[in-house]
């Protein structure tokens, strides 16, 4: 088994991987940019090395520096997490060349699935159903013509894409040209490649994905599905497992197709095959993510399988301990992504310093977080700062626990997506499981119904504090100021009375 693993990532996912290593008795090496000296992943790891300025292109995307650190620190292996270098075939190859194990699939598998067009061609041969669309590399004029043939709405997608970047849904021919331009701009910036292609929009479709695990000995299993239809601008906000739309038979069929897709590229490690599932239970291959997924915890909670530990064991050459028939799903898990975005203001990124924090705990609650008091939430990295996952015996209990935990979350200094999630949990159609990927375009989650009451509270406390501030000088002079456990408020009021009496 590995002695020491370098985690080439930051934030909650770096902590997740550090924890898995600690539970296996493996030492951990963190890397950090100038922005992250005080970050939790630096503090939770056994060792930490500085790798450059805040910009990811100069730190977390610098595979060369990271491999240097791995060699210097004596790490046997590198876990890339998600994002950054996780789906970079060249980095996986560079690790191999440097004699450091890349905890993930082979560079060949990453490359095959990384280019969306190659991926579609490869899996189609394995019998995986595809959505009608165009090849990549067409000019704007060719795409305009193709869109007419496919029929609107169409989806513009970046060939090298992922995570919703470079993706646009277009409803009318007159909007296509500007959307193509925007998608190409984003794609160029995010992936260094502005190639795009078109896909038919499957109406009323859910985003349902299958988690797979594959070892080096040809064993490939799936861990059931995740429902990820609650999205905004193609960014997942809420994920759950299982899906209300998937029964045992459909799960078995989708699972078999996902395993076939993985086998088509000789896949090794954990990976996710994403599908669109339409109302008639037809499903179409979207893409395969050749990495650990943000939403992997919901699968872990219903299957009891620790996906990160399995990835480490697989990378070490071990055979899967689990056979397909051993995988059982029990209960229900839902994840809410906590992002530093203002849901009341069009999900605008919110920056600032975390001044107060208390994370929820209690039955059925799991928190994966990179947040700490004093943290500067800036614009260098992804706005997702934590994940809140609730488990229950059934979907209703999971929703109620997630709701309860959201009300317990205390985070101040930045605006977060928590109010959005609270509203969503109170939305009947979400509670009934009736939604598709366009749900959020048509359904505005309700605003908390006690906002009036809360405004009053905020007004009252502000007046009390201002009053108290006026009294504080006297209070200080009198007895050295506020004592713990004694309401300074009451004292100030009392003193005010006293002063008038004097």
């Amino acid at each position, binding site marked *: 088994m590995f002695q020491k693993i370098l985690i080439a990532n930051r934030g909650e996912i770096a902590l997740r991987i550090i924890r898995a290593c600690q539970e296996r008795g493996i030492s951990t090496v963190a890397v950090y940019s100038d922005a992250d000296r005080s970050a939790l992943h630096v503090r939770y790891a056994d060792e930490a090395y500085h790798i450059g300025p805040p910009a990811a292109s100069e730190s977390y995307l610098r595979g060369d520096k990271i491999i240097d650190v791995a060699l210097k620190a004596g790490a046997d292996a590198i876990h890339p997490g998600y994002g950054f270098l996780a789906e970079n075939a060249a980095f996986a190859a560079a690790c191999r060349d440097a004699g450091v194990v890349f905890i993930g699939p082979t560079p060949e598998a990453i490359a095959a699935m990384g280019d969306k067009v190659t991926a579609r061609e490869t899996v189609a041969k394995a019998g995986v159903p595809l959505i009608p669309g165009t090849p990549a590399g067409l000019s704007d004029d060719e795409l305009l013509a193709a869109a007419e043939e496919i029929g609107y709405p169409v989806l513009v997608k970046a060939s090298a894409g992922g995570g919703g*970047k470079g993706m646009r849904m277009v409803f009318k021919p007159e909007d296509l040209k500007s959307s193509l331009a*925007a998608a190409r*701009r*984003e794609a160029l*910036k*995010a992936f260094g490649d502005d190639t795009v292609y078109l896909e038919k929009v499957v109406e009323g479709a859910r985003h349902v994905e299958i988690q797979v695990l594959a070892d080096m000995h040809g064993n490939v299993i799936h861990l059931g599905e995740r429902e990820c239809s609650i999205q905004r*601008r193609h960014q997942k906000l809420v994920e759950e497992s299982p899906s209300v739309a998937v029964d045992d038979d459909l799960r078995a069929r989708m699972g078999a197709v996902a395993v076939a897709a993985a086998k088509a590229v000789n896949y090794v490690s954990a990976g996710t095959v994403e599908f669109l599932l339409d109302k008639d239970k037809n499903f179409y291959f979207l893409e395969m993510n050749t990495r650990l997924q943000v939403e992997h915890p919901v699968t872990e909670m219903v299957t009891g399988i620790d996906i990160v530990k399995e990835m480490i064991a697989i990378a070490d050459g071990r055979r899967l301990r689990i056979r397909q028939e051993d995988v059982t799903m029990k209960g229900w898990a839902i994840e809410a992504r906590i992002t530093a975005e*203002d849901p009341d*203001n*069009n999900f*605008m*990124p*919110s*920056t600032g310093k975390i*001044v*107060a924090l*208390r994370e929820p705990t209690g039955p059925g609650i799991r928190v994966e977080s990179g947040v700490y*008091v004093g943290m500067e939430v800036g*614009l260098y*990295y*992804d*706005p997702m700062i934590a994940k809140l996952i609730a488990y229950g015996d059934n979907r209703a209990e999971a929703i109620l626990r997630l709701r309860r935990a*959201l*009300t317990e*979350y*205390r985070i*101040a*200094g930045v*605006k*977060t997506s*928590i*109010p959005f999630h*609270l509203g969503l949990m109170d939305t009947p159609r979400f509670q009934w499981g009736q939604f598709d990927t366009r749900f959020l375009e048509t359904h505005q989650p309700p605003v*908390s119904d006690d*906002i009036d009451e*809360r*405004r*009053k*509270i*905020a*007004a*009252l*406390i*502000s*007046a*009390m*504090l*201002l*009053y108290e501030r*006026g009294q504080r000088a006297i209070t200080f002079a009198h007895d050295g100021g*506020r004592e713990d456990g004694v*309401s*300074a*408020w*009451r004292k100030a*009021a*009392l003193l*005010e*009375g006293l002063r*008038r009496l004097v």
Partner: protein
Amino acid sequence: MKYLAQIDGITFEIDIAPDGSMTLDGEPVEADLLQVDPLGLYSLLMNHKSYELVVEEQPRGYRVTVGAQTFDVDVADERQLRMESARANVSAGDGDLPITAPIPGLVVKVLAEEGQAVEVDAPLVILEAMKMENEIRAPRAGVVKHIAIEVGQSVEGNAVLMVLGAERGES
């Protein structure tokens, strides 16, 4: 002492008597406030109802987080407010509205020209931050009076991007 607190354009009136008894918009309230940790976490019992709040001092007033909601509260005692309002009336402008960057970012696109009339919600600027494009839209209808930025420029949070003039006619 009488206090006026403004939140989201709504004004609340709080009266605090010398004995510590209070009214909120004329209703008597029984309130016990305690700071529970050095980071600005407060526990408020109002008429036995329990609230946990995070308070950040602002240059003027407080930013108060109640549950998952955050409010910027502009608070002052009555006298202060009257004086300020008098001052404000003197310098009241002609309806110009500065459009500011809600976050720091890179200007990717400017979607309006000086002199152009825009409807409410019309996209004005595309700002890139956290690798995502964010549209800045017009908060009301008006005429673009001045554009303060150009494509490719990095702007700080709260930087003025453009100024929106009165709805009809150039000023």
